[in-house]
């Protein structure tokens, strides 16, 4: 059996919906969903705007085990409203992370795994989405004092907006080639800065700067895997086994500032330049 999954036999993670992704990640595919769809805890804000709600508000909270250790998996459904977070979905993630941290304070080593398929704040809920994301940030920083917090960005929506900051706070990140990680969506950048600055229709350009391979080669994600559920689960297990990093990526302020000092922003930047500036082993 080859180490790399054959294209025909691979089990696409990208094509799985949020619940099926959870199933692929946890031991034996077994999990217990909290606030499941039948509870119908939906957005209080969408109906009055004529937007059809999804019963789980686009977020699955699942308790299970990974590698025999207790874990809560937070999986965002990218197909519902672009994976954008509103009040309820955001509270599901923040609340679960808060409970995981509380577990650790009681001696229970619950970890958290985030499946980030999201455009960020759901604009129909704007300030409540933004506030929830701030609480997600707070909860990640709290929990990562005890356990690594791992984020998976698989695509095809990718991870943008305030949730890209959440990704930046994770202890470890896993990405696929299909995925992108960036703060602002390409269309918004084009609208704000012009098409010469950022052509939202130029896919090779966008993936070249923000796609999984580039983010991996520039040290902004930790593991780069094929779109295969087995490989993704193995990557997550390996990262959890590393334990907490000595220094979190988001704590490396001086290191990043030093590397950015070697870049002259008078000219535009290329993907190759970014690799030279940021890649592991670049002189600090």
């Amino acid at each position, binding site marked *: 059996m080859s180490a790399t999954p054959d294209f025909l036999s691979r089990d696409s993670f990208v094509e799985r919906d949020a*619940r099926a992704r*959870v*199933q692929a990640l946890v031991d034996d595919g077994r999990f*217990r969903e909290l606030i499941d*769809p039948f509870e119908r805890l939906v957005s209080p804000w969408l109906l009055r705007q004529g937007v*059809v*709600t999804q019963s789980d508000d686009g977020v699955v909270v699942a308790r299970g085990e990974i590698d025999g250790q207790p874990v809560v998996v937070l999986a965002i*459904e990218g*197909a*519902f409203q672009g994976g954008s977070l509103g009040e309820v979905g955001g509270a599901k993630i923040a609340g679960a992370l808060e409970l995981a941290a509380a577990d650790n304070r009681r001696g229970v080593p619950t970890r958290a795994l985030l499946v980030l398929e999201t455009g960020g704040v759901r604009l129909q809920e704007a300030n409540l989405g933004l506030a929830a994301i701030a609480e997600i940030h707070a909860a990640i920083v709290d929990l990562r004092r005890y356990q690594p917090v791992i984020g998976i960005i698989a695509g095809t929506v990718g991870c943008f907006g305030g949730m890209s900051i959440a990704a930046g706070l994770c202890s470890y990140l896993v990405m696929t080639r299909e995925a992108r990680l960036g703060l602002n969506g390409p269309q918004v950048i084009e609208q704000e800065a012009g098409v010469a600055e950022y052509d939202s229709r130029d896919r090779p350009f966008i993936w070249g700067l923000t796609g999984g391979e580039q983010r991996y080669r520039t040290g902004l994600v930790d593991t780069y895997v094929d779109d295969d559920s087995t490989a993704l689960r193995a990557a997550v297990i390996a990262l959890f086994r590393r334990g907490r990093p000595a220094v979190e990526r988001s704590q490396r302020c001086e290191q990043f500032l030093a590397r950015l000092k070697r870049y002259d922003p008078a000219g535009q930047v290329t993907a190759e330049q970014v690799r030279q500036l940021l890649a592991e082993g670049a002189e600090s």
Partner: protein
Amino acid sequence: MEKFEYRYPAGVTAGGRAMVGVVGSGDLEVLLEPNAAGTTTVSVTTSVNGYGGVWQAQLDRVFKGALVGPDAPAVQVEINDFGATPGVVGMRLAQAFAVLGAGSGVGSASGAASGGGS
């Protein structure tokens, strides 16, 4: 956004529940739960207006024999739709009843039934 309600004759109360699908573009989510014996109710919330007749026709097809008949388990069906075609609606309903029959509770949009749901 429009809402519709339908009723169909059914058999004994369903023995479980099922959820499939996502409220994504061209797709829908379907929740099945037990209903009092004898009647299946279907409530549809759809993002696309003006298709009441199409919904009626497709659901009549499904519940009057194409998928389930008057002896099928009595369920409350909730559909949250984001512009699916009748074909996709039929597919999701078939999927939901398959999950119900398998007793696994919650099936994913991509076809694999989860080990979750307690």
